[in-house]
């Protein structure tokens, strides 16, 4: 017996989770399968829609203006601007008060750990007091044992960028952490649980100890920025507690992996999946599928009958009416390559790439790399197309970084594309089941 559901979503990142939630809205039984933990754990937690146009224009003040002029084949062009808005509304409902930015179409400018400014559409509530458009002065606090965030350097960069406020950075020693390479989860855990820490002259609690050493550094600034380690499960409480103790606004400066804001968003999404009755399977990959011909939709009638999941040696069949492929791009390994070709490993959907691998990249490290746009090509329903432009399968849709036609790193469009295409793919899959 195959394990049977209505909709089967492959991939547990932002696109997959959104697809599963959107499908579940249609009242069907959804299963989401995630092989490894998603790249959300690498993600800053910011929800970018479009920061720069594909031709490099930007930063864009209003991403929605630019959506209309995107080239054919760009994921936003495939789903249309209205769907992008709808997907953001859908996200806002899931994120609730943990995210900000929904009051406007305009991009917010958020300082990142390098002191750069990133245009983004939605941002965690804990990032909000740090936006660059706010003219109040900021103190950035880094820690000796967390070299990823060099606060004085980030402050200097911010000044150079022309931010409309004074920024100053200090590097302190985090109370209670001695080891050079303690994990970010260790910092978060200490603050989450407000554990007792040894500060050399006896024990005190982590939050009070942290507030005490930061208070000594304040020189009239009305906000303080920290690396994103201010708690995990109890993040909001930790931040509020520090604000009360310091008497100023407290914010996090988003940084690279591993990233607690990404993990918190992941937790939020998985809580929503549980509430929506989505069945979640993790730790095992989809390795193959069984296809059938069906007369349902004319010439393009191949359908996926079931997929096979490798549970450490056993291929277990999982069956559904509709499937969503949200396995990620080159980093998430939803698109892979060897010396001969670029391919999508589960269904072998067509991926357009030059046969000569020296054409896959640009000589300039920061140039316009073709590989950044590798992925499956889809119709306006997000169904993957073969080399001739025909449907690969009638009941398969693709979402997120597995799609071709956009360079998320250059455009700052990764989260927005995952949300919009995940929403459309899941919604269509769900309504297809409902008939």
């Amino acid at each position, binding site marked *: *017996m*195959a*394990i049977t559901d209505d909709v089967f979503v492959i991939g547990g990142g932002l696109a997959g989770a959104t697809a599963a939630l959107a499908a579940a809205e249609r009242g069907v039984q959804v299963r989401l*399968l995630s092989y*490894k*933990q*998603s*790249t959300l*754990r*690498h993600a800053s937690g910011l929800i970018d829609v479009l920061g720069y146009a594909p031709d490099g224009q930007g930063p864009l003040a209003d991403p929605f203006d630019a959506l209309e002029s995107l080239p054919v084949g760009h994921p936003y062009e495939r789903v249309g601007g209205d769907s992008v808005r709808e997907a953001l509304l859908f996200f806002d409902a899931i994120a609730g008060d943990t995210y900000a930015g929904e009051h406007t179409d305009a991009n917010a400018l958020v300082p990142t750990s390098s002191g750069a400014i990133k245009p983004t559409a939605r941002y965690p509530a804990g990032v909000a007091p740090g936006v660059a458009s706010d003219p109040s002065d900021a103190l950035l606090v880094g820690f000796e044992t967390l070299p990823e965030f060099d606060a004085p350097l980030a402050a200097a960069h911010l000044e150079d960028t022309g931010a409309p406020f004074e920024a100053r950075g200090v590097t302190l020693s985090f109370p209670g*952490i*001695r*080891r050079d*390479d*303690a*994990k*970010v*989860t*260790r910092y978060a*855990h200490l603050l989450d649980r407000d554990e007792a820490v040894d500060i050399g002259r006896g024990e005190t609690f982590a939050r009070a100890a942290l507030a005490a050493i930061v208070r000594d550094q304040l020189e009239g600034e009305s906000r303080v920025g920290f690396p994103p380690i201010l708690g995990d499960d109890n993040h909001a409480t930790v931040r509020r507690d520090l604000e009360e103790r310091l008497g100023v606004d407290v914010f996090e400066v988003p940084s690279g*992996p*591993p990233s607690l804001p990404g*993990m918190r968003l992941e937790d939020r999404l998985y809580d929503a999946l*549980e509430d929506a009755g989505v*069945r*979640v*399977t*993790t*730790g*095992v990959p989809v390795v193959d599928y069984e296809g059938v011909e069906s007369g349902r939709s004319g010439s393009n009638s191949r359908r996926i009958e079931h997929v096979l*999941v490798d*549970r*450490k*040696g*056993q291929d*277990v*069949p999982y069956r559904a009416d509709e499937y969503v492929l949200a396995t990620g791009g080159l*980093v*998430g*390994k939803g698109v892979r390559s060897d010396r001969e070709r670029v391919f999508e490993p589960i269904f072998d959907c067509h991926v357009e790439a030059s046969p000569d691998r020296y054409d896959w990249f640009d000589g300039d490290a920061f140039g316009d790399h073709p590989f950044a746009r590798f992925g499956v090509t889809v119709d306006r329903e997000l169904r993957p197309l073969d080399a001739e432009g025909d449907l690969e399968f009638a009941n398969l849709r693709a979402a997120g970084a597995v799609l071709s036609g956009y360079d998320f790193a250059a455009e700052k469009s990764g989260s927005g594309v995952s949300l919009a295409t995940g929403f459309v793919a899941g919604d269509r899959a769900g309504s297809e089941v409902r008939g």
Partner: protein
Amino acid sequence: MSDAERPTDDHVPGDDEFDPIEVFPEADEMDLRPGADNCYKCSTCDTNCPVAEVDDEFPGPKFQGPEQWRLKRQSDQDVDASIMKCSNCMRCDHACPSEVPLSQMHNSARGEYVEERMSKRSLEYWRNRLLSNYRLMAHLGSKVPRLTNFVMGLTLTSVFNEKVLGIAGEREFPEFATETFREWWRARGGHEVSRERAEAARDRRGESGADKKIAYFHGCYSNYNTPEVGKALVRVYEHFGYEVVVPEQRCSGTPMFANGMLDDARRAADTNVPELAAAIEDGADVIASCTSCSMSLRQEYPELFDIDGVDDVSSNTWEGLEYLRVHEDLEGELAGTRADVPNLAYHTPCHARNQGLDGQAIEVLTTIDGVEAQDVGESCSGISGTYGWKEEHYETSMQIGEEMFEHMERADGDTGLTECPTCAMQMEHGTGYEIKHPLEVLEAALVPDSPETARATTDGGVDEVGEAGRRDEVRGSDREGGTDEADREDRTDEADHEDRTGRPDREGQNEPSGAN
């Protein structure tokens, strides 16, 4: 193992001795380079490590795996002692987005550390050896279960364990059952009776065609401590028409891997693999009721041991519920059944999660009327087998478990549910709840009249079985009979015992099986 093949083009006449040049100096070790090279240092593993989250002295899985492996290429670097802080929960395997075989690297590093750097005269070594060879302790203890339970419950014993052996005094030793699973199985008639029952069930179900057969890998815990789990498995499988065989077996190796006792694990595997491979050859699939046992047979065996049949065993081993769900219409069968069990708080063991089994127990069991089960989240229970038993790790173990305890207490149920025996110990230890195994709930729904005494006296089941048995005798004569199997089992236990004490101890002499 060297990949060097005998070249075909340089045969010198008369020179039959070809001596290949060793290109890679570590060619007889596992080659972990591709795994190490896959690591792009995203640190996702570190953020999933339950030990690193509560202990900043622990360098984390990324260091223990690919970084330490690379360091060791450089010079005569030793494995860092912190490897012993790794609990082998294997959550890093699940986390890694780049297919680095982290737990395999940890297992081999730990093995090397214990082999080369831990004194074989130290109490730590012998404490670890004692803990990881639980089966031997249990084998002896279960001969006189009441005495053992009494002694293990004494304050004096607990003080001795903590002060001398370094076994956390806070832990209560699990009680030994007065009748082991294997004793019950033999008293019940072994394979022969199971075949009769399975055949009767297939008749009742109107199933014709091929025999259905499984080999049960009960592991140590359901044999010595919770035989009710093993009995539930047998009854549920027989209900679906499967005949059950119970091959000779030793520990799955899980506690040995976690303690770096790879030689002990290898010795156990040298029994388990051929026995299970023979059962597979005989048409059975291997079923485990403990998810760490199935994890070991599926993943760790082929990763660590090169034994004939190891891949066969890996690809034919299943978890108890999983197999039925894939091979039978389990949900259909459960529809309309009822089980009167208290509300359940379910914890997915980390090793179950790595086999894609998260959510399974709830998905399946909540189709039964009267079963309410709630998932208590993805946190690790913190005990990780023998880890939380060590005095020096007890605090860490309880700090890790804190989140699960809180979630359990917040859940509606006040009975726990999990597949893993040591997670069950931790759940009970942290909350005081009674803990059930999903197979016991399945048994309550499908075979409600299961206690065989009840069946014999109430519904005439014995006659039914008796008839089936008579029918079978004719056919059974040219096959391996149940009596043989039981004899063989006796021999295993004796041999095993003799192995260690140098003196055979007749099974069943000290303890009349099943009588009390």
